[in-house]
């Protein structure tokens, strides 16, 4: 309830928000969530004015002070020490920053921390059960579904999100589901195998 109240304190319009942000805003695209706020009440947020927000990440609640212009990715990596989500492009092209927001794979670089309030965020760290790997992580390990490993947290989150909505994807659905995540080392072949292996592991577990 308290979180809901907090959300109501943040109002901003997309246009006014961007107009105060200068060039940096060109790479930020509002999500549906943000657009919904815009329709509520036209109050301009100062992009640099520290604002209290509450984020639910990997089942834990974090109350933090952020600048409204900060991306979720920046807050995860540089403020909460959750560095598994990676910075690849900061413009929604590579998927290295993929996290689950309400079970859907989303680019954390394209999500403002303020707009992620009221959602359930899961990062790669959140797939671990203590020291034990989650099924998709285990499958990536077994199938050698990476080389340098930098895109891997994003790939794993994309695969995990895919399997949450589609527990037995076809080969075509796997390709499509994984097509928002670039891998410059070119480990796609093994990534497809890992997703299939994860289906098996989930079935078995």
């Amino acid at each position: 309830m308290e979180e809901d109240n907090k959300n109501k304190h943040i109002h901003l319009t997309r246009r006014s928000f961007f107009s105060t942000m200068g060039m940096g805003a060109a790479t930020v695209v509002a999500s549906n969530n943000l657009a919904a706020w815009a329709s509520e009440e036209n109050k301009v947020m100062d992009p640099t004015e520290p604002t209290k927000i509450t984020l639910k990440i990997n089942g834990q609640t974090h109350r933090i002070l952020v600048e409204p212009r900060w991306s979720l990715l920046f807050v995860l990596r540089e403020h909460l020490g959750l560095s598994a989500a990676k910075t690849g492009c900061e413009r929604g092209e590579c998927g290295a920053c993929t996290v689950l927001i309400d079970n859907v794979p989303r680019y954390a670089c394209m999500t403002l921390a303020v707009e992620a309030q009221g959602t359930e965020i899961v990062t790669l760290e959140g797939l671990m059960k203590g020291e034990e790997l989650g099924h998709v992580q285990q499958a990536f390990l077994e199938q050698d579904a990476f080389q340098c490993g930098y895109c891997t947290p994003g790939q794993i989150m994309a695969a995990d999100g895919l399997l949450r909505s589609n527990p037995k994807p076809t080969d075509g659905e796997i390709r499509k589901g994984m097509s928002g995540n670039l891998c410059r080392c070119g480990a796609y072949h093994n990534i497809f195998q890992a997703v299939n292996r994860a289906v098996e592991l989930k079935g078995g577990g």
Partner: protein
Amino acid sequence: MKQDEKGVYYAKDIFVTETPEPGKDPKPWGKTAVIGKSQSRIDAYERVSGTAVYPSDLSLPNMLYGAILRCPHPHAIIKKVDTSRANKMPGVLAIISAATSEADIYWSYSKDVKTKLFDPHCRFEGETIAAVAAQTPYQASDALRSIQVDYQILPYIVDEQNALESGATKVHEGGNLVKPEETYFRGDIEKGFAQADVVLEESYRTECQVHTPMEPHGCVAYWDGDLLVIHESTQGVYSVQSNVAQTLGLPLSKVRVIGHYMGGGFGSKLVAGKYTVITALLAKRTGRPVKLFLTREETYLCTGNRPPANMTLKAGVKKDGTLTALDFSVTGTGGAYPAGGTALVDWLIKDLYTCPNVSTKATDVYINTGPARPFRAPGHPQGAWALEQMMDALAEAVGIDPVQLRLKNIPSYSQAREGNPPYTTTGLKDCLEQGAQAFRWNERKKEIEGFNSSKHLRRGVGMASCLWIAGGGGPPSTIILKLFSDGSVNLNMGASDIGTGTKTVMAMVVAEELNVRTEMIQIEHADTGTTQYATPSGGSKTVPTETPAVRSAAINIKQQLLQMAADDLKTQVSTLHFNGDEIVAKNDNSIKIKISEISGLKKRGVVVGIGYRGPNPEGKVVNPFAAQFCEVEVNTKTGEVRIIDFLGANDSGRVMDRLTYDNQVYGGITMGIGFAMTEVRILDSNDTGKMLNRNWHDYKLPTALDMPPHMESLPIDLPDTEANITGAKGLGEPVTIPTAAAIANAVYHATGVRIRKTPLNPTQLSMIFSEHLKEK
């Protein structure tokens, strides 16, 4: 049994590889227990759990964020940099530019060229002008935008094909020719063409390819007293150390570079960048750690590329398939500074196939773009694009199968090197024959002709082969192994694991020699402060360079343990050998001692083994070889090409880890698919000279949707016992050399249209098809 699974050793009663006497070379491994099997990576858990800390993940107490202001013009003089407004911005702690005394130092883009770190003459878009350290990256980028720069914008040249025309803008005062035309010849080229039954001549072009590793270039740097510590995303900590020490005038001992994990490099992270030095200066000025990683856009402009190649190849062949003459020329560019714009593009023409009469010319020119850096098999995919398409055309012209034409012209020695030294091994014949068989080359060619009878969807098969000029590795390398009193091992090496599985392969070598399970081996690596000197991980040389040194270090440990055991057992070393976790007399099983019970080991607590990389065989060449086969489906109405199948056959000597080996093969083919089909740097040569597609949206990498539904890796497992004591050759580069040409050959087979320029994207192909296939 349970104890075995968790213990230090694989099994208690297995015979361990024979230990040579000190000073003698070990025998090649016979049957192996670990090497050649599929072993998942020893750091896989770290990489999939998110606990692996990449340099860009690092957060240090009190850390600041750095950012660099770059020239937006391809050619300009900086008249004035006004930082007064930026200095007052919130969170800004330091701004450095040409006016900053400690930044008034020289930078070397190449050996012979020194310019200022912040040089007033900007010769490419993306050259450095100033840099900021601030409390957040947002504040740093705000500050950059507040720096006022007066530019004198100069005329530019960004098309290398016009760079030598009279009146072309000069990048440097001396003109745009980097060095005199480089030429090579052997035999008598005119005589060669006179002997030929068929002579063909074609022009080819490959576009500029940009590395774009997933982790951008950059580092976290701080000063610990007078020691500069740099956590850099790099392929070689020791090369970064020497670049930085030289640029800042520091002793090597005062620069510690650490690079445990790194998110891809492909040749673009072999050395330090200006960004490394700038980060160190910002850290010095603020007295705080500074994290500076480039934006994706910056990585397109100033961290290197594979230069474009404009090539012409004239070739002569006899009816029986004998090559008589090859005449090749290439024009390329390394950008605004000397950076090997045409390096090695002609190597395959000179060295891959037997041909007595060869002439090559290379012209390297300057243009106003960021300097090139080595890119996975420099020059080779470009040269292969020309040579392997030409081989395909020659085969058709004389009515010989393309595989057979190549088989007819396999040399056993290197023709391009002085003295024609032989290769230690060449598996090219096996790659071609076994590859063709596994791919069902002959059968599929026939099957496809039936498929193509009607429609606009046409299938074709294509193939190409290659060698890689390096890939033998060599000295120097030093490895230190520590065997603890329980038998577990610590391996210390300077080399980076750039994602190829280096650490895993090294652990497997230790495991093979000592029978110690890979899980019991801890690796310390890629740290100039604590690990041994190593050359950067590049050139497909890390496995053939480091594994022999690792094996030597393990043998060194075994020799010491045998001596200690002989002392304990009051016998001669020569009577003893390893058996599982024990040292046992060869003739009498009852005379034995557990390794962990050896008194010398117990007393010291550790046995240290040192291994050095021995020299390569004198007068011989160690090269890996490969052949690739593919099938494509071409839509002649839309110009779309769908790759259906790919097979890579590689002779890289002994297969070390089958799992990471196959992964390299698939990855190399994937990168080759990008080179062939999607990747092109687009420069606005008419209006601004700027790069138009400096991001992953406009510069397309292959995605999951571009992958062939079927891919196969066929290792030709030929341990190269002459090359080194592990028999391994390099793999990472040959896997990407023939890919693009194989695809082009398959498209030709499908359509009868020869595509001589990359990329094979629908934009180009639909135009070409509409012209060529109209009348058919």
